[in-house]
């Protein structure tokens, strides 16, 4: 049993505590969902359970935590990992080894188990997660969902009774999410205690025995309702125009010869449309977006972008804006203002900086270093910095990933507003609710053919 009594915690050098007076009891075999917006302290709470707080991250802790009568504050992290296993958000940065078999053994090796027991546990864990056939595969060849299952296998092999998941579904697609739900169900049936921290929680509501809502470091007594209506998109005032901004005809693309990622793609996107591209990982969403921005050129077929046939990226600078998934790779400068002015300065244009600061809601933070902003703010700044070039088409790859509800609905509001101003917007997303903002979907399936489905 996990028992938390009057827990207050502050990070080193923080003025306000991240957790305030938390009291919570979690029984063996329970499945508890901890939800709340970014900055509400839900991940911090998880860190106090696996010992990263206070052992690694430091800070001041008040109150009492016991797990099965033991206090994680007094045990080394390695000892805690024997009974409480943690899986973080991004599977990529939790895989250390080059081979699946080595990775799944990693935790057990650290616990100094005898070699034959490690082999036994590894095989059992892989079998349990449906990964046994990939035992000899190389880790970097796995898909996103498989990587996550590998990480869970490696934790499972260590034999903990408690599983802690930190935003486990953020980085995976709809199929991966379904598989993850199955895994959690399996763990529950085995009698394991499961604690999941998430900001998208609709899918878990059936599995969870209890939902704990955190707000600004405190437990909010009210049980969260499904608040889908809060994020209802606004009705658009101005319908799409007739002019065609993007046209793909019979487009085929392959990274490896004879293995097309996209085939027979016919798409037409009109001026100031808002279009969502959906589909599982590996269905070619990013590739399609890159073709639409001229970053990749099709093996065959015709791409017309703003009236130019099969243009090169250099011909489209300033006219087509493209945003990669990770905003941090697209913020180069030392202040918010400089970041927005970066593009216009290169192309010798003058802009109304105030307008763009208003668009991303960062008027009061113009001198802040972009990398010190919150994840949601960084994403908005990255979008606005591309907008400052006044592109006619804006293309965004997974702009909602890793954003909480408020952040992504702010972003979607911004994108809708842009289409009202005559910008054509195409974005890829796993977030079903964010997809509702779009005028229509383009659905890609793994058979590589794209269908422009009307909503």
């Amino acid at each position, binding site marked *: 049993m996990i028992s938390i009594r009057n827990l207050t915690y502050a990070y080193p050098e923080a003025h306000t505590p991240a957790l305030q007076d938390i009291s919570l009891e979690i029984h063996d075999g329970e499945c508890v969902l901890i939800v709340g917006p970014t900055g509400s302290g839900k991940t911090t709470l998880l860190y106090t359970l696996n010992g990263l707080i206070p052992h690694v991250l430091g800070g001041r802790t008040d109150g009492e935590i016991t797990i099965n009568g033991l206090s994680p504050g007094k045990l080394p992290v390695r000892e805690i*990992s024997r009974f409480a296993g943690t899986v973080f958000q*991004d599977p990529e940065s939790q895989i250390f080894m080059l081979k699946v078999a080595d990775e799944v053994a*990693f935790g057990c090796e650290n616990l100094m188990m005898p070699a034959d027991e490690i082999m036994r546990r590894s095989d059992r864990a892989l079998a349990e997660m449906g990964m046994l056939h990939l035992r000899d595969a190389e880790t970097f060849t796995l898909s996103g969902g498989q990587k996550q299952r590998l990480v869970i296998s490696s934790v499972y092999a260590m034999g903990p009774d408690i599983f802690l998941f930190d935003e486990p579904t953020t980085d995976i697609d709809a199929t991966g999410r379904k598989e993850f739900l199955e895994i959690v169900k399996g763990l529950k049936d085995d009698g394991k205690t499961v604690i999941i921290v998430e900001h998208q929680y609709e899918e878990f509501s059936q599995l969870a025995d209890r939902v704990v809502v955190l707000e600004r470091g405190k437990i909010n007594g009210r049980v969260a309702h499904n608040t889908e209506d809060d994020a209802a998109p606004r009705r658009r005032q101005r319908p799409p125009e007739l002019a065609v901004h993007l046209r793909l005809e019979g487009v085929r693309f392959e990274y490896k010869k004879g293995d097309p990622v996209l085939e027979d793609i016919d798409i037409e996107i009109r001026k100031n449309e808002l279009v969502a591209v959906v589909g599982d990982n590996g269905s070619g969403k990013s590739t399609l977006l890159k073709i639409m921005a001229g970053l990749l050129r099709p093996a065959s077929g015709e791409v017309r972008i703003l009236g130019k046939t099969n243009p090169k990226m250099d011909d489209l600078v300033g006219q087509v804006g*493209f945003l990669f998934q990770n905003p941090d790779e697209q913020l180069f400068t030392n202040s918010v203002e400089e970041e927005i002015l970066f593009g216009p300065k290169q192309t010798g244009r003058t802009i109304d900086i105030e307008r763009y600061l208003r668009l991303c809601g960062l008027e009061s933070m113009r001198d802040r270093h972009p990398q010190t902003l919150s994840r949601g703010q960084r994403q908005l700044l990255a979008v606005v910095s591309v907008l400052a070039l006044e592109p006619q088409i804006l293309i965004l790859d997974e702009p909602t990933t890793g954003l909480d509800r408020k952040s992504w609905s702010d972003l979607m509001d911004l994108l809708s507003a842009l289409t009202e101003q005559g910008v054509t917007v195409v974005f890829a997303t796993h977030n079903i609710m964010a997809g509702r903002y779009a005028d229509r979907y383009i659905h890609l399936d793994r058979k590589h053919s794209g269908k422009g489905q009307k909503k």
Partner: protein
Amino acid sequence: MRYLNGDSVFHRLDARTKIFLSLTLACLIVILNTAGSLFVLFILLLCGFFLIRPPASYIRIMFYLMATALFATLISQGLFYYFEPRTPIFTIIRSDTPIIGRLTGGIYLYREGLFYGAIQSMRLFSAALLSMVIVMTTYPSDLILGLNKLGVPEKVGFMLTISIRFLPLLMEGAKRIITAQKLRGLQLKGLRGGIKGFRYLIVPLTIDCLRKARRIALAAEVRGFTGKRTEIKELRFTSLDRAAFAVMSLALVLAIWQRLVR
């Protein structure tokens, strides 16, 4: 170029033997100085290379590399050989040509230069073949385990593994940053553009690295990593390894003896 599954002699050698093999061969490449002995070494390594049965694409890469290296060393050594005696075998610019002839003192292709170039390229080829053979037949984690058994601390080994694992991701990130810069209108042409681009590359790349490093560290921590661990993989030292050790040691001794005596 990367690890290939297979069952060649090199695949069967212990990683420690292969580390020893690389060291002694590297020494041989430097110590041997006659055209004949270097040629023998080169042929042996070439046989080794083909013993692994590399795919056609690898053979092509090797061929192009060698052709370029051979051409470059032969020409540069042939033209700019400065040791006496030197025998011109071909005149490109005579010394009495107006202006250029005066300035350069004539440009000739020297026989000794070509010869010296051939020896140098033999060394280059051998070094390239050696590293290709090792990379193609040794799984990185085995090599690290080998280093480990030879006394390199486990934490250093773990660092090496992590860098092999994450370096490609870092390169991809850098590529995306550069594309993002271009899309925002940054001109990367010329030296000035390059320097400017680098300045704007290094900030996001460093910060992204630090964020990733932090995540990796936390993830390793919760999986109980402290540096001490059991290793399920074992390295096996067989009679094949003993034979390889013996042959390589003998070759090294012979090479040193030949240099000292002559």
